[in-house]
């Protein structure tokens, strides 16, 4: 293993007294356990475009810190703007036999509001809007000050942990697939047209798919530990 000729990037930028890598990581040669297979291996800061992979199972361990933070923040910002603006806008409109109707995300959640399915109203609204927006906000809260070389906000690490725990419960992109299925189901009985929220939700799907290939969570955790004294 050769020494990294490049100094650690963004990681220590703007931090008046960056703690040495060794002070928190145990030894001068930092070790990391693969989160999938537990194999213990030496790791180091990663240059832009590089990926550090587990030798045992091939799982990506670390990517470039600045790149990881920028991708996550861009996705989070887009998610907040797109979701908040699409809540009240129609995503589909139909007309049949001279009658018209349309549906927004809010209308969809309220569809369950009567009978046994009433608890689903809140659940659907949480899964599609509240949790994805909350998660995106938590990510920006944690990463934005660090990226601007400012001191971290209070409880930044806790906010970041909550964001990663919320991930499986954010289903905005599952919803747009539901819209597509509904579209096919009623396409035969009515004339369907797309509302503005349809395109916003489609963009969200694209963002989530792009983000799923970026496994920067461990990289960002490592950066947080270096930058925020506990």
């Amino acid at each position, binding site marked *: 293993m050769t020494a990294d000729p490049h100094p650690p990037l963004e990681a220590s930028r703007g931090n008046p007294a960056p703690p040495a890598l060794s002070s928190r990581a145990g030894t001068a040669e930092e070790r990391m*356990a693969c*989160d*999938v297979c537990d194999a213990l291996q030496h790791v180091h800061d990663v240059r832009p475009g*590089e990926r550090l992979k587990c030798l045992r199972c091939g799982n990506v361990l670390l990517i470039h810190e600045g790149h990881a933070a920028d991708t996550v923040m861009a996705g989070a910002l887009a998610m907040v703007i797109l979701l908040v603006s699409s809540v009240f806008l129609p995503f589909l409109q139909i007309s049949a036999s001279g009658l018209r109707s349309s549906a927004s995300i809010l209308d969809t959640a309220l*569809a369950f509001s009567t009978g046994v*399915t009433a608890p689903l109203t809140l659940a*659907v609204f949480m899964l599609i809007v509240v949790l994805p927006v909350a998660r995106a906000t938590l990510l920006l809260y944690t990463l934005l000050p660090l990226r601007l070389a400012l001191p971290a906000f209070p409880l930044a690490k806790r906010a970041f942990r909550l964001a990663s725990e919320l991930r499986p419960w954010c289903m905005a992109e599952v919803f747009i697939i539901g819209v597509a299925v509904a579209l096919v189901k009623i396409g035969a009985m009515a004339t369907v047209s797309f509302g503005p929220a349809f395109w916003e939700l489609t963009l969200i799907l694209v963002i989530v798919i792009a983000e799923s290939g970026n496994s920067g969570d461990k990289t960002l955790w490592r950066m947080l530990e270096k930058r925020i004294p506990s």
Partner: protein
Amino acid sequence: MAHAGETHPVLTAHGAGLIGCARCGRVAGHEAHICPRCGSVLADLRRDSVQKVIAWLFAGLICYIPANLYPMLETTFLGTTLKSTILGGVIDLIHHEAYFVAVVVFVASILIPSAKFALIGYLAWSIRYRVRLSEHRRTQLYEFVEFIGRWSMVDVFVVAILTALVNLGFVAGFNPGTAAFFFALSVAFTMVSALCLDPKLLWDPMRNDRDTHD
């Protein structure tokens, strides 16, 4: 391409008397209970992981029964109301020769949930009975289960969208059935079950034993 510096034979954090965090990869001493980097509960405390997986999976399976017996969607068309279960809906679509939609609904509501029950069950069983067989393959299965879990919520959303969208009075309309509630619960429980499964147990099933004697 950068690579990490360990060669054969593989030393795991557990083998070195340390604990590797399942969320962030930080290595901590074996006495640590909480990861010093990300604050997660560390893996060695999760030795009851398999029991939890099975408990949540069972809850999901229980809810999946009424989800299939009760109607999922009530369709009103020109004054007549038709109640259809998940499977009934698929069969109706086939009768109407809408084969593509039939396949989509069948995959989302029947194939994915069944595959999830089978796969999580198999993974939990493989840990308990130490199937020393292709960890790579089983890790791929685990990632697949984690990935598909949330997607079976699609059908619940479809029911809500149809109800909200098609509201043409006497001509046509939809209403959600009781099954939507149980189906959503079933999906949520199976997701929790998959989240309880510690993927590291797939690679080192023996650690389960050693931990109990610590």
